[in-house]
């Protein structure tokens, strides 16, 4: 920008001459003033600018600035709310985490006690099963021995009967003769 700012007095003088010349050409008369500032232009633009500024201040800038302030406050409030919510969220998260940890510990405890109870129950069931099995075994052994006794008795009975039968057959063969037969019949009758 410095090359612009370094505009020499010569240039300014030239501009003034150009503008004065132009003014003379358009109005047919000069300003008759040595000032480089066009007085009429200064006045007209000052009126235009101040009028516009007053209108803009009332109709545009003040409402816009108020709205900007309002929005700034809203944004600040929203940010504060967001911060607060973030903190609350963090607190909630830590509470949730604590509850979760608590629940985990409780669940672990329940599981452990459940396992212990299951182990106890299993032991009880096992010992009961063992007892039951022992009883059943005893009963079975008793039944077996009873059945064995009965079988032995039956066997003895059958053996005795077979022996008697055999003896009868032998006797019958020995007692072919009349005298022997009579004796045998008599003995049988006596029995």
């Amino acid at each position, binding site marked *: *920008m410095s*090359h*612009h*700012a370094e*505009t020499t007095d010569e*240039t*300014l003088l030239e*501009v*003034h001459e*150009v*503008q004065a*010349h*132009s*003014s003379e*050409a*358009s*109005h047919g008369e000069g300003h008759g003033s040595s000032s*480089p*500032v*066009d*007085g*009429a*232009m*200064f*006045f*007209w*633009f*000052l009126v*235009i*600018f*101040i009028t*516009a*500024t007053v*209108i*803009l*201040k009332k*109709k*545009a*800038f*003040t*409402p*816009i*600035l108020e*709205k*900007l*302030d309002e929005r700034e406050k809203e944004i600040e409030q929203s940010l504060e709310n967001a911060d607060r919510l973030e903190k609350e969220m963090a607190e909630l998260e830590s509470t949730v985490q604590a509850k979760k940890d608590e629940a985990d510990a409780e669940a672990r405890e329940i599981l452990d006690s459940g396992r212990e109870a299951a182990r106890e129950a299993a032991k009880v069931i096992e010992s009961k099963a063992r007892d039951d099995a022992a009883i059943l075994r005893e009963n079975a052994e008793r039944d077996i021995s009873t059945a064995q006794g009965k079988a032995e008795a039956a066997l003895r009975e059958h053996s005795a009967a077979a022996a008697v039968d055999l003896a009868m057959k032998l006797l019958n063969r020995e007692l072919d003769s009349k005298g022997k037969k009579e004796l045998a019949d008599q003995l049988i009758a006596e029995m």
Partner: protein
Amino acid sequence: MSAKHEQFLPMSETVDPIAEKTEAVTQWITHHVSDGASWTLANVHLDFADANLPEGFKLSGLMGLLGVALVCFLYIRVYNLNARVPRGWTNLLESMVSFVRNEISIPYLGAADGREYAWIFISQFTVILTLNLLGLIPIFSTATASLGVTAALAFTTFLAMTVLPMQRYGVGGFFKNFIPHGVPVPVLFLLVPIEIAGLFIKAIVLAIRLFANMFAGHIVLFAMIGIAVIYGAPAFPAIGLALFVFFLELLVAFLQAYIFTMLSAIFVGQMLHPEH
């Protein structure tokens, strides 16, 4: 006249096409940078005298009026005050308001004054920027390349520099602020007039800086195009240079609007807070 010069005299009497073109280009540049009382738009020629425009009202005035009207139209009609989320033009216009208030007015005037008087600087910034940019459109002219217009703008800063402190400190207090604390009395005889003169110089410098920058930019731009016109094809790179200067002018348009507004805020801030 020397014999050597006389030898070349007949040559200078012949028609030199380069000199002719240079003369034509000079006239063209003079016409474009001069503040006339007429405006030519393609085939339409508007003569201010025929249009019953006020005496002394020239092209820069018309451009100033157009620029100011455009700013009013944009901020009053185009800007949507009810938009919850600003978009498009509303966003652009609002960002300028916000920029001037937050980056210029508040830093140099303080939070309270910066908010209260932001409208002065917003108005200056938007109007100067619009006038600068309007001047870059070929059919328009740069109002800020007229010293009358920039002086009027600087005068508004001068008004703010004097009226606002007078409202706050009173007329006596205003002049009391020119007396620095702890300075020996004899020095004051030298210092106070300098301080008072500084008040005017600041405003004058504001006007000259903006005018000179915008005017010089246009002269350079037209000169580049003029070189291409005078020398033809060999000077074709000058068109590229002119294009470069045009983009530079675009930057200057924003920069000068910013500098003018920033300096205004600094000067007003100095007057409102003399203790700083």
